[in-house]
């Protein structure tokens, strides 16, 4: 697998850039359409997918804006109406968004949110807060089930995540509330479970809905002094949402307790299922949608279709532009020689700008979304088309060029009747190369919210979800092969077979 740091970098890049599509102007007002947002961690992805499928089942068109980074980003998107609904946690809502320290009462929240045009709905049920976990056997052995009891144990090795150690609602508060005297070690959260498994520590911090608690045979101690703040999951919605839409979301209220959420998270983390699959399973198990064996597949296929169409659209428009500019400019360079040679240099320069940098540089000029993506792709397709056109024209048998002149053809007629048909094989070869480069580079367009097959790839890289990566990579590869075949057909139509043979038929 990838070293952690690189994977991390890709994750963050992907999420942030995908996120940024929020800022792009996007038309989502087609009929009954709804935009569901999610934060960039598994549980939130899964809940957003559940809501999305619920809406899709009710006939809505759903625009998924998943994986936004940071509470403020997604909250602002909700305020701006770019997201219609997402799942927030009461603790975060109170501290980060509302800067409110009172009790977590829905009505109080809604009073504060009203001015923003936002509404919080009934909690989904579970409380995803910090917790203290240890092996079930150890708990049984020591006979403890609450944190207070743990604080009495002297011979206990504690290992906590750095974050937990540093937060005031983490270790320091815990010490004050429960009077711990043990010295904990700091370690990476991911490593802590393994450390517990190996026996090098006995106790660590956890979230109440961690999907892998069961895997490691861990139980959570009761927070008997109610120290940990509450993080109940609740949907935040745009106040303008229709009653039907609210009712749909309200179907979820109280449906998922910690145990159930742990189990659902586990299906994703441990069983390697996709969010779409688990969401669909959940909705069926709860009887919220018709049992339909293909529903998750259907979502996948519809995503696939949409992504592929967008990808095709990006590529086709860019390639058409590339041809529309590259071919005439190539012809002009051929005709007027060194005068316009600098054009090739410029096209070459464009090619040296790394695609990410180019896309990034375009943002101040063209914003985010399809336009800059298409412009970038167009620039990349230009050079192969331009150059192959020029060379192909230059290498045409000069005797034939002279005859075309001698017959009294105008320059335009020479071009259309003789030069272009004779240059066609080599020009097509350049366009083919440009097309394949476009298909490849278009996957990067997802970074600036242009969609396409890069979307699952980018998300897949972010979540380290190979099946998601393949959902982008395989269709992209198929597109490439299809393009080859298409061009072969085009060649067969446009070019007489004897013009393109290794050996003449004898």
């Amino acid at each position, binding site marked *: 697998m990838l070293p952690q740091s690189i994977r991390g970098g890709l994750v963050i890049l992907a999420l942030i850039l995908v996120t940024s599509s929020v800022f792009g102007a996007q038309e989502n007002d087609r009929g009954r359409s709804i935009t569901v947002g999610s934060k960039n961690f598994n549980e939130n992805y899964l809940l957003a997918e559940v809501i999305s499928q619920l809406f899709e089942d009710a006939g809505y068109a759903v625009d998924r804006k998943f994986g936004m980074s940071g509470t403020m980003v997604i909250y602002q998107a909700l305020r701006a109406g770019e997201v219609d609904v997402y799942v927030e946690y009461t603790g975060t809502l109170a501290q980060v968004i509302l800067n409110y320290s009172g009790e977590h009462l829905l009505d109080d929240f809604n009073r504060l949110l009203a001015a923003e045009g936002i509404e919080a709905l009934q909690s989904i049920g579970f409380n995803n807060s910090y917790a203290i976990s240890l092996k079930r056997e150890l708990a049984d052995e020591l006979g403890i089930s609450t944190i207070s009891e743990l604080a009495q144990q002297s011979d206990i090795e504690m290992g906590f995540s750095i974050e937990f150690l540093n937060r005031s609602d983490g270790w320091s508060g815990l010490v004050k509330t429960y009077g711990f005297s043990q010295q904990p070690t700091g370690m990476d959260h991911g490593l802590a479970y393994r450390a517990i498994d190996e026996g090098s520590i006995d106790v660590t911090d956890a979230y109440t809905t961690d999907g892998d608690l069961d895997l490691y045979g861990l139980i959570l101690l009761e927070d008997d002094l109610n120290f940990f703040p509450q993080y109940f999951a609740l949907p935040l919605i745009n106040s303008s949402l229709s009653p039907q839409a609210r009712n749909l979301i309200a179907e979820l209220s109280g449906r998922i307790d910690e145990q159930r959420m742990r189990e659902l998270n586990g299906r994703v983390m441990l069983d390697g299922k996709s969010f779409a699959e688990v969401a669909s399973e959940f909705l069926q198990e709860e009887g919220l949608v018709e049992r339909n064996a293909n529903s998750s597949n259907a979502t996948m296929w519809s995503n696939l279709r949409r992504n592929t169409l967008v990808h095709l659209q990006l590529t086709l428009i860019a390639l058409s532009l590339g041809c529309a500019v590259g071919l005439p400019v190539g012809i002009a360079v051929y005709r007027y020689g060194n005068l316009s040679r600098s054009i090739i240099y410029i096209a070459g320069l464009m090619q040296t700008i790394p695609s990410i940098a180019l896309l990034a540089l375009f943002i101040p000029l063209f914003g985010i979304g399809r336009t800059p993506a298409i412009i970038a792709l167009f620039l990349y397709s230009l050079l192969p088309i331009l150059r192959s056109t020029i060379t192909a024209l230059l290498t045409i048998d000069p*005797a*034939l060029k*002279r*005859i*075309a*002149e*001698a*017959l*009294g*053809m*105008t320059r335009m*007629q020479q071009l259309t*009747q*003789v030069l272009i*048909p*004779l240059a066609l094989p080599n020009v097509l070869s350049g366009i083919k190369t440009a097309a394949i480069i476009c298909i490849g580079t278009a996957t990067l367009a997802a970074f600036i919210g242009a969609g396409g097959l890069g979307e699952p790839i980018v998300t897949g890289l972010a979540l380290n979800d190979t099946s998601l990566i393949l959902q982008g990579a395989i269709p992209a590869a198929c597109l490439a092969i299809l393009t080859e075949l298409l061009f072969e057909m085009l060649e067969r139509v446009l*070019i*007489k077979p*004897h*013009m393109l043979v290794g050996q*003449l038929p004898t």
Partner: protein
Amino acid sequence: MSTSCIHYQNVSKSYADKTILEGLTLSIPANITTAIVGESGSGKSTLLQMANGLVIPERGQVAVFGSTISRANVTRTRLTIGYSVQGAGLFPHLTIYDNITLMARLQKWPIDDIQSRYHYLLTLLELDKDLSERFPYSLSGGQQQRVSLCRAMMLKPPLLLLDEPFSALDPVTRDTIHQEFLKLQQAETRSMVLVTHDMGEAIKLAQQIIVLHDGKVEQQGSVAEIQDHPASEYVETLFRLGGQ
């Protein structure tokens, strides 16, 4: 000389250090057939290509039907000139039909006129109709040469420049076509300049003969004049060895 179809006024042409033509002045009369004969490499093809602007002389001017060839009028002028190139030079991507009718179609001739002219030419040059949809690579040398001739004649140009048009034909086919051309000359007046190495052909088809030698016009005159009074030993040898 009444009217001339091509008039070369003090034309010079050289490549690198080698001079091909120097200060040549020459009028080719209109409405008759003129044969240009002479040594290989003496500049016959060059002379023809000056008339349709493919070769531009370093000095001097060339006038076709009285108007001097310039960048501005060369394309228009070429439409009035049928040019059959030495070595056929057919477009490999076009069928025989398309090769021959290309210019007529570009000139937006009515399809019926194109068809009838096309079939007339095929018959004239003893070509099989089966060739129509084939591509040049599949034709024999003599067939390609005749297709090139058809292409040159398609637009019924008032001036025909034919560079060794029958060199790849067997005597029987060649004779048949000669007869047709003679009939044609009687039916319609047309200026024709014919480069050939076949002295018999020159005598049979042309009214005037120009002998090129060493970059100069060695002799110009009617067929009888040249046969009866060769201006030099070269002219005499040429016709003797040419079997006439």
